[in-house]
């Protein structure tokens, strides 16, 4: 088990979002845990505990991937390192 401190978790190599494990402030460089590795990301917005952050620039209409599975599509362009939630993604079953 990697005991190094991390700020967010990514679950699958296909994912384009990660989930915060603490409250994060904008303009910070955060550590994201993926299996036993650590990836860093610059975040541009405040992120609440358990909320999602984009790992890449995501185009409007592109699938949002978490757990290696589709959890919805982007309603608008999502910049890398920003909050991903109901304001910018929508269910395929909506």
């Amino acid at each position, binding site marked *: *088990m*990697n*005991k*190094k*401190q*991390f700020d967010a*978790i990514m*679950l699958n190599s296909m994912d384009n979002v990660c*989930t915060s*494990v*603490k409250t994060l402030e904008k303009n910070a460089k955060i550590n994201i*845990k993926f299996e036993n590795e650590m990836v860093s990301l610059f975040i541009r917005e405040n992120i*609440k*505990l*358990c*909320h*999602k952050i984009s790992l890449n620039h995501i185009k409007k209409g592109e699938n*949002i991937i*978490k*757990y290696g*599975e*589709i*959890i*919805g599509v982007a309603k608008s362009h999502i910049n890398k390192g920003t909050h*991903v*939630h*109901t304001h910018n*993604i*929508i*269910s*395929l*079953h*909506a």
Partner: protein
Amino acid sequence: MTSKFWGYLRKDGKVGIRNKLLIISITGLTGPTARKISSLIQGTLFIDNPYGGGVIGEDKVRQDDAIVGFAQNPNIGGILIISADPPMGEFIKTKIKKSLKPVELLTLDECNHDAVKLLELGLRKGANLLKEVSKNRRKEVSVSNLSIGLECGRSDPSSGLIANPIMGIVADRLINEGGTAVIGETIEWLGAEHLLKKRAKNSEVSKKISNAVSFQHNFAKSKGIDLLGNNPGFQNIQSGLSTIEEKSLGNIAKSGSKNIENVIKWGENIKGKGMFLMHAPAYAPESLSGFSSAGCQLTLFSTGVGNSFNNHIAPSIKFSANPKACKMLNEQLDFKCSDVFLGTKSVTSASVDLWTLLIDICSGSLTWGEIFNDSSEVFSRIDRSL
């Protein structure tokens, strides 16, 4: 070698993890008095069916099956049925008697509809039943006798990331050791049904999974429901869940990795061993009651931000991986796994701890939900009354 716990071996071969006298009011008219009787006899479980003669058709079958299901749950050692009229009472009593447990029936009719008389007779009958039920003793038995319900409520992303995968490992282990587990909440298979279907025992079960999800989704659509705001609900969204797919993928993590043996109806008795799906409503009280009626002795209940509701007959082990909830809800969470969320402990190691707790609770240690009696059983309805 399979794990063992201390349980109550019943005459029908089932094993209870508790030994309760059930006081069940099967008609709306008898509810208030039956509740008083239960409150005056220590340690009894009370269930109130608030409906009655107006329940017809498929609803009537579902209601009667649930009453019988609750009474036949192995955690129940004896039953006092309280009914307004004799025919309904006798009908239920005959069915429950098949479990070979002590059963008594008391009707408002035989008390000339005098509630004070009902209270007196109910206290006498209930007290004598409890004396008999209390003679049962625990014996060491295999976990293969266990059926557990897997629930999540007031979830957040920590549920799907950590708590539910831990539950999934425990469910897999129980099934490896010959036991049974069930998940419900059909609408929370939507967006993840392809993963459940891959695990279906055969094509017939796979079709049942598709049909159940379509049915529930079409039901929502036919009522003009936008799932966003309903499921995920307000609290889910506030705590970070964005779509039904995201919630569903986290939800099914609690079902582990075993084959899906069958899809059963709400409250339907589970026949066989292994992992089952219950086609049922998602809101906790109705979902949990389906597990009690199906014969589950225990529920594992994960939450994100906290959920004070518990199963009445089948004690709920309540747990969370959310650091705030773990800090604040000391007398609600039976198991805390925020250390896994924060990376100081592994999912595998936490699952071993949860398994140890499960054995302990099954052997008689109390859950917070039992200590506070924050629980009830409810009846699931399909249609309107006459």
